[in-house]
């Protein structure tokens, strides 16, 4: 049953061949069984999940219908979910029970989707491997010695291992696309402002965006259509008509112009990933796509600009954790300042502290112009690169990650090396553009490879069209990791 996709499960629920409670029980059984090895979930709360499933069954009996009614979904542990522990992968919030729901959680509740549990993540979404979680890393279901990618590693792991049919993630510099690529699933980061950030614990507010993770583009389109929408409580939410992101899925690819950025196929790209991506391009050309070479000349500056802007915003956002209103407070302290300093020193992990210190530094007196303002100008150059590229093509394609999943511990000692995992993904966040990753084969050690698709602002439906058509030509998205039983 857990191998069925969301549409097949919805059909069974609708035909009363299956109840939501039975489906939730089956997902919970699998999640509980596999979690001891995969560590995909920080919180499973069967009683709460089953209560939601019971409610979904009641709503169906009363005549309600929606493709997600009664479908269990896993939520990255930074979406506030009322009554559930919402830890953000941090000791700082390890006892935080959210007193309200995030906007996207409200939207899923409104259609009757069931909360299966809260997934593991890098602390405060800061990381590319999931190893910065206070609760230990989630594992890559394809190879338990490998990282699942981060920061939405638990969500990617849960979907790839068939614990959950779909999941929510967030992406600040690649945190949906990178784990999707490394775990062999589909994930999309929408245009900035399409999904409300209300109730999503903030990391870098001008870059953070929530999005769905699923096995196929078709399922991702359904999830995105449900979670996207205007929300007046998020001042950056865009007030625009709602969309059916699945409307173009069946559109033929003939004549679609794909831009291949020279800089994404350079020396930093490992050969196994490069050849899987080339093979995907061959499929797409055969399906009628044209390919043109484009240039994103400031690609090399994306990671440096990101590591000024994201920490700067983080240092400001995370100032709220002071041990007063919620979260961790040190057991022993002297005066108020000492209480702040000890609570933050003990409550935050190493990478989070590192980024707060960098952010504090680049915003401090005398350095603001040299670092922060400079990075904002480079951000403009990066956005201009994309604007020029999209004059020559409809969508941009390339690798999501320069390598397949690396071994746990391999990049821990060297933050700069770890940061360079995001070399092809931070650009979309900086420019505010949508980006997605779809599985396109396997590389070294039989670990999955992701194909990245980027579009102009609000081009999600066309990106999902390309992804869906590609998934009609290949079966990478239907492969499942074995040896988990």
């Amino acid at each position: 049953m857990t191998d069925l996709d969301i549409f097949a499960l919805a059909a069974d629920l609708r035909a009363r061949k299956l109840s939501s409670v039975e489906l939730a029980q089956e997902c919970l059984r699998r999640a509980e069984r596999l979690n001891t090895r995969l560590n995909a979930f920080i919180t499973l709360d069967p009683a709460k999940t089953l209560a939601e499933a019971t409610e979904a069954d009641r709503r169906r009996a009363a005549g309600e219908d929606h493709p997600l009614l009664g479908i269990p979904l896993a939520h990255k542990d930074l979406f506030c979910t009322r009554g559930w522990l919402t830890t953000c992968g941090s000791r700082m919030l390890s006892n935080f029970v959210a007193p309200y729901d995030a906007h996207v959680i409200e939207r899923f509740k409104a259609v009757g989707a069931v909360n299966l549990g809260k997934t593991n993540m890098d602390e405060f979404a800061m990381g590319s491997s999931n190893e910065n979680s206070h609760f230990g890393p989630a594992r890559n279901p394809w190879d338990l010695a490998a990282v699942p990618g981060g920061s939405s590693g638990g969500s990617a792991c849960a979907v790839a291992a068939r614990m959950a049919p779909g999941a929510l993630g967030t992406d600040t510099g690649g945190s949906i696309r990178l784990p999707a690529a490394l775990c062999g699933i589909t994930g999309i980061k929408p245009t900035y402002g399409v999904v409300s950030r209300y109730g999503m614990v903030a990391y870098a507010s001008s870059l953070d965006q929530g999005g769905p993770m699923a096995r196929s583009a078709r399922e991702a389109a359904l999830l995105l259509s449900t979670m996207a929408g205007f929300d007046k409580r998020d001042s950056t939410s865009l007030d625009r008509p709602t969309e059916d992101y699945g409307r173009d899925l069946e559109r033929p690819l003939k004549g679609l112009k794909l831009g291949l950025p020279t800089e994404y196929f350079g020396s930093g790209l490992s050969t196994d990933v490069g050849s899987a991506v080339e093979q995907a391009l061959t499929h797409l050309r055969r399906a009628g796509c044209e390919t043109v070479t484009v240039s994103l000349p400031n690609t090399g500056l994306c990671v440096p600009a990101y590591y000024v802007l994201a920490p700067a915003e983080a240092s400001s956002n995370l100032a709220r954790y002071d041990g007063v209103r919620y979260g961790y407070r040190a057991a022993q302290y002297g005066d108020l300042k000492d209480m702040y300093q000890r609570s933050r020193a003990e409550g935050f992990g190493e990478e989070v502290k590192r980024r707060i210190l960098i952010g504090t530094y680049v915003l401090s007196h005398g350095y603001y112009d040299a670092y922060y303002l400079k990075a904002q100008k480079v951000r403009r150059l990066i956005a201009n690169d994309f604007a020029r590229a999209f004059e020559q093509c409809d969508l941009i394609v390339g690798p999501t990650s320069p390598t397949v999943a690396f071994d746990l511990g391999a990049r821990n000692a060297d933050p700069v090396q770890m940061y360079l995992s995001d070399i092809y993904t931070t650009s979309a966040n900086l420019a505010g553009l949508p980006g997605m990753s779809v599985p396109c084969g396997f590389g070294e050690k039989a670990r999955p490879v992701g194909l990245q698709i980027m579009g102009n602002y609000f081009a999600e439906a066309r990106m999902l069209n390309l992804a869906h058509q590609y998934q009609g030509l290949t079966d990478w998205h239907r492969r499942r990791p074995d040896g988990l039983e």
Partner: protein
Amino acid sequence: MSLSLLDIKRIALLARIAVSEQQAHEALNQLNPILGLIEQLQAANTEGVEPMSHAQDVSQRLRPDEATEPDRHGDFQSVAPQVEADLYLVPKVIE
């Protein structure tokens, strides 16, 4: 541009994060290579380029100055480390 131990301690104080002598040394060793990475930005020609602070060119929405939230202070204070008589407790700041 590289940081000194004194810089680290100053930044940590600004960020309100307690650091021991050893932690300050460790932070120094890790932050300097990161600053080296960031330093690459200086090579970019940004003359006349408008800083980009946000992905979308939208202005702040205004709303009527009315209370929109119901009073749920009980729920919100239930997650606080220390509360008494509806007030958050902190160490004494005024003698």
